[in-house]
């Protein structure tokens, strides 16, 4: 009895000793990685990235943790596999030479199709896997993909029993095991043959879903025996340079501390309207119809940073670098000089050139390498095109929390669909995430178009509540000191001329 108690104690001690997979973001959503001596099924439709995940799991194991691996392939030819993953920088041939990697080629040989005439078991496969593990002292094993076994041997209960034997053998060696399996639909039964998920401890589903005409890759931990894990689908990308990268959205915590330090918006009158400038590491949304001056506001914001020798990053999704530079020049701001000084970096990208997740990673990459004090993203509307509302909101949450964590002051622009007044769909689901909102609107008075500006929201500060007219000239934006009160209903999109005489600049407290 005593020995049994000790045994239990020991096994508890070793209970779920997790190993880092090395796959970006996976440790976060799985609370530490994958457990040793346990098996995990990766189920996904064709082209969802199962093999890449499995392959990366072994490669990272070798490169980062010095843990040798065995790759049992049931489908793909080993030389094909080697070539396919070379672009990620995984040199399997080298790992083989270094004695860190062994293939077990369990693809069915078609040279001679085997006829099944009687009872059998998979002892030969087990023996081969065992020999490969012994040879490289493997700590990680991949079986890719076990569906072929079911297809070939046509006896699910026997394969289930035999796989169970193989898994028990591997578990005894405390090996981390990944099995992959194909599924036919993105939302349906977990695995094709309906038994795969029952033989493994953990189940992960990866999807490649068509959403609003765009592909979106997600990973979901469906079952993780004995461990907490994030639930729901997590976005991921397959980065051509680094492979799998999961973007954990659900685990973000709102722990950013907000700064009380003010920075200039680049426009003195706008600073005044905001109660003394923007807060550092706050997110400001500039919303307005096309041509109202959103790009001008961000250009001034960059100018303001440049005056203080701050580092500035401009992520442009609507206009080219040349266009932006020309526009800025028209308002007396020299982007070229700012770029030459090394303080400004303009990154102009087509929004359609990548998925939202890839854009996010790209922004993060630039922020982490360039380390800006200020960032401008022009425009959210361009990025939102072709993505679902939910996906976009998640993107914004991750982006804003990332920027705050890195203490970057950010200005996002958003194009409202109505020329005069009205809020767009974009605004409604962005507005809660941003700290401040500046509205730019057209207002028509007796056949003359006026441009007006209002600070709609300024989290944690007093701000001017009025609507002000502004002009644009070669010196940029000039906001009139007088409230634009000859009309009411501008924001609602139904302007009415009021009799009320124009009053002075009134700043009310929040």
């Amino acid at each position, binding site marked *: 009895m005593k020995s049994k108690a000790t045994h239990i104690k020991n096994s508890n001690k070793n209970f779920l000793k997790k190993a880092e997979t090395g796959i970006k973001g996976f440790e976060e959503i799985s609370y530490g990685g994958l457990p040793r001596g346990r098996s995990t099924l990766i189920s996904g439709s064709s082209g969802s990235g199962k093999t890449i995940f499995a392959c990366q799991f072994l490669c990272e194991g070798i490169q980062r943790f010095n843990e040798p691996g065995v790759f049992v392939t049931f489908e793909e030819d080993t030389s094909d596999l080697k070539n396919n993953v070379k672009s990620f920088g995984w040199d399997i041939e080298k790992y083989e030479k270094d004695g860190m990697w062994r293939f077990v080629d369990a693809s069915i040989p078609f040279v001679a199709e085997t*006829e099944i*005439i009687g009872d*059998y*078991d998979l002892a030969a496969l087990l*023996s081969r896997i065992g020999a490969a593990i012994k040879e490289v002292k493997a700590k990680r094993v991949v079986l890719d993909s076990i569906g072929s076994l079911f297809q070939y041997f046509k006896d699910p209960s026997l394969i289930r029993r035999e796989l169970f034997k193989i898994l028990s053998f591997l578990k005894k060696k405390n090996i981390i095991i990944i099995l992959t399996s194909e599924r036919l639909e993105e939302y349906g039964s977990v695995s094709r043959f309906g038994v795969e998920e029952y033989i493994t401890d953990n189940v992960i589903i990866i999807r490649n879903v068509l959403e609003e005409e765009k592909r979106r890759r997600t990973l979901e931990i469906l079952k993780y025996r004995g461990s907490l894990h994030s639930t729901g689908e997590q976005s991921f990308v397959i980065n051509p340079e680094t492979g799998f990268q999961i973007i954990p959205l659900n685990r973000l915590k709102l722990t950013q501390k907000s700064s009380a330090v003010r920075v200039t918006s680049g426009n003195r009158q706008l600073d005044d309207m905001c109660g003394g400038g923007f807060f550092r590491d706050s997110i400001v949304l500039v919303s307005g119809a096309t041509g109202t001056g959103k790009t001008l506001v961000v250009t001034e914001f960059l100018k303001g940073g440049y005056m203080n020798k701050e580092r500035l990053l401009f992520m442009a999704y609507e206009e080219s670098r040349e266009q932006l530079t020309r526009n800025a020049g028209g308002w007396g701001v020299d982007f070229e000089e700012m770029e030459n000084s090394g303080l400004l970096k303009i990154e102009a990208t087509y929004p359609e050139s990548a998925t939202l997740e890839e854009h996010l990673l790209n922004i993060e990459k630039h922020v982490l390498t360039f380390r800006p004090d200020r960032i401008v993203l022009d425009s959210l509307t361009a990025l939102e095109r072709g993505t679902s509302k939910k996906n976009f909101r998640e993107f914004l949450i991750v982006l804003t929390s990332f920027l705050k964590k890195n203490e970057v002051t950010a200005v996002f622009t958003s194009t409202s669909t109505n020329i005069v007044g009205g809020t767009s769909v974009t605004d409604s689901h962005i507005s809660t995430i941003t700290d401040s909102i500046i509205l730019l609107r057209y207002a028509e008075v007796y056949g003359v178009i006026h441009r007006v500006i209002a600070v709609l929201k300024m989290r944690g500060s007093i701000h001017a509540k009025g609507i002000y007219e502004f002009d644009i000239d070669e010196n940029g934006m000039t906001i009139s000191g007088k409230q634009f009160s000859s009309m009411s209903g501008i924001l609602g999109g139904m302007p009415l001329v009021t009799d009320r005489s124009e009053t002075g600049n009134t700043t009310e407290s929040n």
Partner: protein
Amino acid sequence: MSKVEFEIFVTGPQHRYTNSIEVFRKICISTLGETGFEIRVIDVTRDPEYTELKKILAVPTIIRLKPSPEKRVLGDTRSEEKARLAFQVLMDGSTKY
């Protein structure tokens, strides 16, 4: 005339398949004659390298190596009926029979 060559992949130190091999051998003798064939038995646990080379997944697998092309059957041949079936499948397509 060259001999028919067989390889039988089995497992286990307990000679689990000794009987099956003997039943198959008897069928071979009765059809090909004592000297008309050769059987090589490979224990997959003792020779995983060769098992790997021949890409054997399951046991018992019988391969007819020669005459080429190679032919394979999978399954226990402990009954005479199964052994005969295995033999027929393996020799089917060979010009000799």
